[in-house]
């Protein structure tokens, strides 16, 4: 679609420009089919695909700062740029795209980056630079981006006054149905603006008769019919205009203009009765629409043409009353606008979320006070201002939510600190029960004894305690005072046999027992080392915890301070936006007042003329 031009335009162009309010299509980014190699990048895409773009952006920025999307560096940077661009961060997005072009050799990434850069430049009004960026795209983009690219470039040509280039670009392009419809519409309008009504009409007629499955397409179809109908009217082809305008839905957003046009087409063919039908229907509709305001004059005009002067007089008088009442309401609205009440009423509503991208206010506000801002809201600058205000309000709320969280985290840290203070003495007491150095010394002795047993084949040293005890008792007998007494020969024989058996057994088991003992020594050494490590970890952790807690505390303090500073700046900016919007609203209301005053003056003159004519007839 075309943006309303800001330079001076012919009346036809002006009409078409108004009919062609910009319609944005939020399409996918052509990122499907990625093989995710970092789960955090996939998580960003999960939010991005759900159009939760603020979450996607914040998670992406965080993940990149933590080096968690290293396998997707170029794509991540491109995605960040695209998300920033959607969020109105043209400057940051532009920096990212230019940096990316200097660092990546991936042709696919480079082409997509040139596309986004062209978009940034176009949105900032740098048309020549945008065109240069388009020319750097060397291969087709992913399908959705490719379609958007063609339409954007066509809009660029049209905005630059290069209608022929726009037509040439779009003439043979085939995209999906939606994009083709937009392309045909843009091309048709460009042709009409070039004075090639016949060629342009063919394309507009194609859009105007297409089947439409959704509201967006139905609306575009109506818009094409209105544009074509008024083009015919301007070319004084009223007979062609009427059937085209009659294709517009009676309950759609363009029905008022269509009804007005149908009336004028009939009127041109002197079919005033028929014209009256369309205008009377129109005159019963919402007076905020300029077409409805106009119909209040058109109805008595038709009556007058039919020779029904009393009806004409009555309807002119009715128009005068309505215009006067509306002027009074506009005066009140102006007072409200000057006091800032009108805007505050409009923007005081709770911001939905930080996803301000998709916030729209396309419908007429419901309440009486803000209804008069309908035209202001339709204005690009007002709409952008309002969107930015709500974005800032949502960010302000977002920061308030963080402040609440930080407060909870501070409490959590305080609890941790308290628990630390309570548990530390208990833990120290518990640890003091273990004499780790003594245990380690004991273990070293064991190792040494086992080594000596191996070296000396000391079978007793590795024998179980019971056997060692038996061995000692048998050995002790040899040293008793009565050992050499008479009559002990039998006893000595028994002792010698038992000692021999015991030694035999111990010797037989020596290798197994030695292996077991050495294994037990190793396991004990390992356990003692683990215990020593754990002691060290506990000591380290208990020593570091106060520092960790105070480190977090300091960071929380710093972040809270940053939140304060930013919220103060946000508040100032919101006040400035509010003032700006109030000024715009005031200007729009003044313009509306002037328009209604003009209608009222016309109605007065026409009424006087009808009265004069009636008086002359009565004479």
């Amino acid at each position, binding site marked *: 679609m075309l943006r309303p031009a*800001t330079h001076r*335009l012919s*009346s036809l162009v*002006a009409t078409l*420009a*108004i009919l062609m309010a910009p319609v944005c299509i939020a399409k996918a980014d052509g*990122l*499907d089919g990625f093989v*995710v190699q970092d*789960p955090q990048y*996939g*998580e960003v*895409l*999960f*939010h991005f*695909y*759900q159009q939760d773009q603020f979450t996607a952006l*914040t998670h992406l*920025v*965080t993940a990149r700062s*933590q080096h968690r999307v290293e396998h997707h560096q170029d794509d991540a940077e491109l995605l960040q740029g695209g998300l920033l661009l959607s969020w*109105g*961060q043209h400057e940051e997005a532009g920096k990212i795209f230019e940096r990316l072009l200097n660092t990546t050799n991936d042709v696919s990434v480079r082409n997509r980056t040139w596309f986004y850069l062209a978009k940034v430049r176009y949105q900032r009004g740098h048309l020549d630079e945008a065109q240069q960026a388009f020319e750097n795209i060397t291969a087709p983009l992913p399908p959705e981006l490719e379609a958007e690219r063609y339409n954007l470039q066509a809009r660029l040509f049209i905005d630059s006054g290069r209608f022929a280039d726009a037509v040439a670009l779009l003439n043979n392009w085939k995209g999906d149905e939606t994009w083709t419809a937009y392309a045909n519409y843009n091309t048709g309008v460009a042709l009409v603006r070039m004075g090639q009504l016949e060629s342009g009409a063919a394309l507009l007629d194609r859009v105007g008769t297409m089947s439409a499955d959704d509201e967006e397409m139905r609306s575009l179809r109506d818009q094409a019919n209105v544009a074509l109908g008024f083009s015919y009217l*301007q070319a004084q082809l009223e007979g062609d205009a009427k059937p085209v305008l009659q294709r517009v839905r009676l309950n759609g957003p363009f029905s008022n203009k269509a009804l*007005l046009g149908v009336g*004028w087409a009939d*009127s041109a063919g002197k079919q005033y009765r028929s014209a009256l039908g369309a205008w009377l229907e129109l005159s019963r509709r919402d007076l905020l629409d*300029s077409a409805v305001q*106009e119909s209040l004059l*058109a109805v008595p*005009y038709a009556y007058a043409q039919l020779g029904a002067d009393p009806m004409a007089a009555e309807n002119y008088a009715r128009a005068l009353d309505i215009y006067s009442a509306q002027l009074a309401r506009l005066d009140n609205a102006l007072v409200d606008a000057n006091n800032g009440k009108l805007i505050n009423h409009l923007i005081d509503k709770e911001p939905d979320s930080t996803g301000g991208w998709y916030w729209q206010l396309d419908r007429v506000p419901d309440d009486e006070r803000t209804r008069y801002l309908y*035209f202001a809201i339709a*204005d690009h*600058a007002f709409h952008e201002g309002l969107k930015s205000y709500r*974005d*800032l309000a949502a*960010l302000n709320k977002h*920061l308030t939510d963080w402040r609440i*969280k*930080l407060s909870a*985290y501070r409490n*959590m*840290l305080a609890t941790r600190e308290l628990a630390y203070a309570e548990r530390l003495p208990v833990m120290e007491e518990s640890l003091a029960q273990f004499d780790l150095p003594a245990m380690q010394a004991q273990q070293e002795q064991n190792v040494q004894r086992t080594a000596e047993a191996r070296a000396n084949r000391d079978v007793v040293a590795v024998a179980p305690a019971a056997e060692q005890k038996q061995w000692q008792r048998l050995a002790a007998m040899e040293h008793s005072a009565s050992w050499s007494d008479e009559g002990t020969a039998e006893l000595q024989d028994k002792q010698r046999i038992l000692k021999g058996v015991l030694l035999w057994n111990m010797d037989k088991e020596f290798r197994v027992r030695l292996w077991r003992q050495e294994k037990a020594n190793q396991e004990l050494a390992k356990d003692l080392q683990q215990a020593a490590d754990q002691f060290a970890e506990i000591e380290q952790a208990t020593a570091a915890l106060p520092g960790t807690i105070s480190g*977090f505390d300091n*960071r929380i303090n710093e*972040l809270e301070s*940053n939140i304060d500073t*930013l919220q103060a*700046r946000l508040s100032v*900016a919101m006040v*400035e*936006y509010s003032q*700006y919007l109030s*000024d715009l609203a005031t*200007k*729009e209301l003044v*313009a509306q007042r*002037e*328009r209604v005053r003009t209608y009222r003056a*016309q109605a007065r003159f026409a009424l006087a003329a009808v009265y004069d004519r009636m008086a002359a007839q009565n004479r």
Partner: protein
Amino acid sequence: MKLKAKIRSLFLVLLLGLTAQAALADSATELAALDQESQALKKSVLELNRDLFVLEEELLYPSNTQVAVFVSMDVGEYFALDSVELSVDGKNVSNYLYTERELKALLRGGVQQLYVGNLKVGEHELVAVFTGQGPHERDYRRGATLVINKNIGSKYVELKISDREKQLQPEFVVREWE
């Protein structure tokens, strides 16, 4: 009033809108100035937001105990995921029901962070069960058990619902990241 004059009047009405817009050209300059400040503010908020996220994660899920479980899909578009249930060491930690929007995001390649928590160093058992509906309204309920060895450092586990291995038979494929 002649018809031609009337049509001119019609265009006048429409033009008045434009005249008003032309009068707002100054406002566009003012908007540009406000936009500069708005962009600077958004940039600052974004940076602050990043710092807040990092702090939150370090505080709640320190890297030496952090475990995150992700869900992804690699299935034909006719498989409709209803829910995923996750237990860690016998304790249920997540019962997630998917919206159509989330399902579409998964089918397009998005990865959902189903769970993030803290686990001690050592072995832990994860049990995941998904339910959903495949072609011909056939209901599916499949589970997977995984023993993970948690070391020092973050642990990421991806539960991919895939029908690549068995045609039209969605199964969990588990992948671990350190």
